């Protein structure tokens, strides 16, 4: 949650997505194997929550404005979610492969 929040408020755009991906990859690297079940699915959720929350917080007005804010948040979040999911997924797969190799050895 901290990474997308920092990225969203202080960096924005590509840098924000990179920060999210880096943070999620680091988490995927450090947690126990069972922790990957939490890191992988919750990283996009955290990004989504921060992006949508920020847009909704900024939006003033009625229901249509709020709906537009949610849509904006989702549109902004999606690229970062994809990059983050791909990076942390790659880390998880590489961890699994290396563990299998070491088990075979």
């Amino acid at each position, binding site marked *: 949650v901290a990474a997308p929040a920092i990225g969203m408020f202080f960096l924005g755009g590509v840098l924000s997505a990179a920060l999210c991906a880096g943070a999620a990859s680091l988490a995927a690297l450090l947690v126990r194997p069972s922790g990957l079940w939490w890191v992988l*699915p919750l990283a*996009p959720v955290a990004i989504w929550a921060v992006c949508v929350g920020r847009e909704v917080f900024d939006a*003033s007005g009625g229901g249509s404005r709020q709906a537009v804010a949610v849509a*904006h948040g*989702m549109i902004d979040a*999606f*690229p970062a979610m994809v990059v983050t999911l791909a990076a942390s997924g790659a880390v998880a797969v590489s961890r699994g492969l290396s563990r299998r190799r070491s088990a075979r050895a």
Partner: protein
Amino acid sequence: VPEYQPPRRQPPYDLTPRTPGSPAPGDDLRYWSARPPQPPRPPRPERPERSERPGRPERRQPRRRRRATVAARALACTASAAIVLASAATWAAYHNLTSGLLTSNAINEIRSGEKGYVAPHLDGSVNLLLLGLDSRKDMDGNDLPTDFVEQELHAGSSDIGGYNTNVLIFLHIPADGGRVTAFSIARDDYVEEPGGTSAVGDIPDLGMHKIKEAYGRAKAIAVDRLKASGMTDKAQIEKISREVGRESTLRAVQLLTGEHVDHLAEINLLGFYDVAQAVGPIEVCLNHPVDDPIENGAGTGLKLPAGHSMLDAAAALQFVRQRFHLLRGDFDRNRRQQAFLAAVVHKLKTDGVVGDLGKMQALFDVVKKDVVIDDSWDVLDFAARAQNLTGGNADFRELPITGQPVLPDDGSVNTVNPVQIRQIVMTGFGDAKEFENEMTQAAANAANGGSGDSALSQPQALGPGTLNDPNSALSRGGQIDPGLPSEPGLPAPTPVGGALPSYAPLPPLPPTARDARPAAAAPIDTHAVVDLYNATAHNGLAATVGDWLSASGWPVDKTGGAATQSRTTILYGKGAAKAAAQLAQTLGVPAVPAPSGRTAAGHVLIRLGADYTPPGGPQPATPSDTTGPDGTGTADPANPDPSAALNPADSPGIAMDNGITCVN
């Protein structure tokens, strides 16, 4: 080889006493454990049923914990997948909607410090400029098929039209969802067209011309430069030169109005036709039957009865283009454009298109071909703001002119009072305080010998020269040629009053701009503008009193007729209390706040009733007077000021509350 014997374990029933912690004889020491033998467990009491258990939380068993963990993981994965898929769908829909839109970066190309630059406002409101181009060419600069132009668009030959911006509608959408205000800028308004930086180098100041020509003049310069640089790609030349044309128009509009353009939308004849076709038949209403035959390439061929009519795309184009055989010419055309826009928005609302991305998609597929929008346009945000336009919470107005002389190089033009225009627009857009600050700054700069870079410190920078400006072409009297037609093949326009000297005098400029005195010296509250309606049976009263108020320094925005009433009333909107009180004192009528918020912020609405009597001080001409504005006694009692009948600000604005508004 001896047969393998498995080690014998201590049978569980062997209860031979032994020292705790020591192996029993015969034990296989490999399986001996240091764990002391445990006393036999007492029989476990039977576990009560779940419903009978005491309040202490149940101690979860590992299997249950595993199940809970698995369930939580499944939930997280499902939620995550749902969020990712929903975001992907939204992202894809948005990019599908907006991809392929023709965009312009013209707004960002106008640099700070250039004449015509206005700093963006930070209040979240949006100023949108609708720009209708009278071009018979496609986006690559190719002529549209002649048959299509003549038979379907009824727009004459492809050779005419050029790149005139015949429609300029400037809308303000407040951030708080308040009332939308829109001004039509008459295409023939005689304004200064400043130059500036562009993709083809610096464009020089274009001088004083009709505002509609700013686009074409700058574009022509750009085309010449691009061709001189060796560029041969026609589409590329068209693209770059149009961008230069847009920048020039933006500078002229910003210089004239004092307001920053946040977004622009440019549409040409073909685009209008396509959009009208996509929207479907549009209902309009005419006050009088219309017959506008095509003669010598002019006219639209429109023939409609009075009352409501449904227009297809071709008829819609005729409806918004007609300017001959109309009482007020171009100004009636502006009204028609406003009414048509209101009708389109009304139809989009009733069809449920506004705010529905799916239905908007079909419209956008058409819009993408022929409509240019600025590259920072947020379609979703605009869809939400467009709800304001459809909520019966918008009105269209026109800007006043001061005369219609005919100039040798420009033909028939509309002269305007730039300070008055700026005041009306800025007040209408909620920037009355900024206007006052500009005036104060201009006065200070003038008092300091003209130093400073405020646009208002120099009269020229305000925009058009005026009848009061000795350097203006308008003041060099011998150049007026009433017989010069404005466009080839078109009848000569009729100047108001016939010749320049007989025009009604301009209302005095605010003291800060005219005499370089501080604005604080002005007694009138310039935060508000006055809308004046004649609710009596006497024709011309509103125009007469409006002229008098203008001459007294009041910014009169609209004058017109209203349903008759016995008493004169003054209602005022938000922020106009002080001005309303001053007017109440002047007119001897109590002012009350508008009860339903229908009066726009910054507006004072005066309805002159049967009990109205001219107050003391400068006396306005009464309806019974036969003395004209120049004191020659030539005025028609039914219409004391002939120019007022043609003044675009003389009729009430188009309110969108009704959806369909009847126009001339």
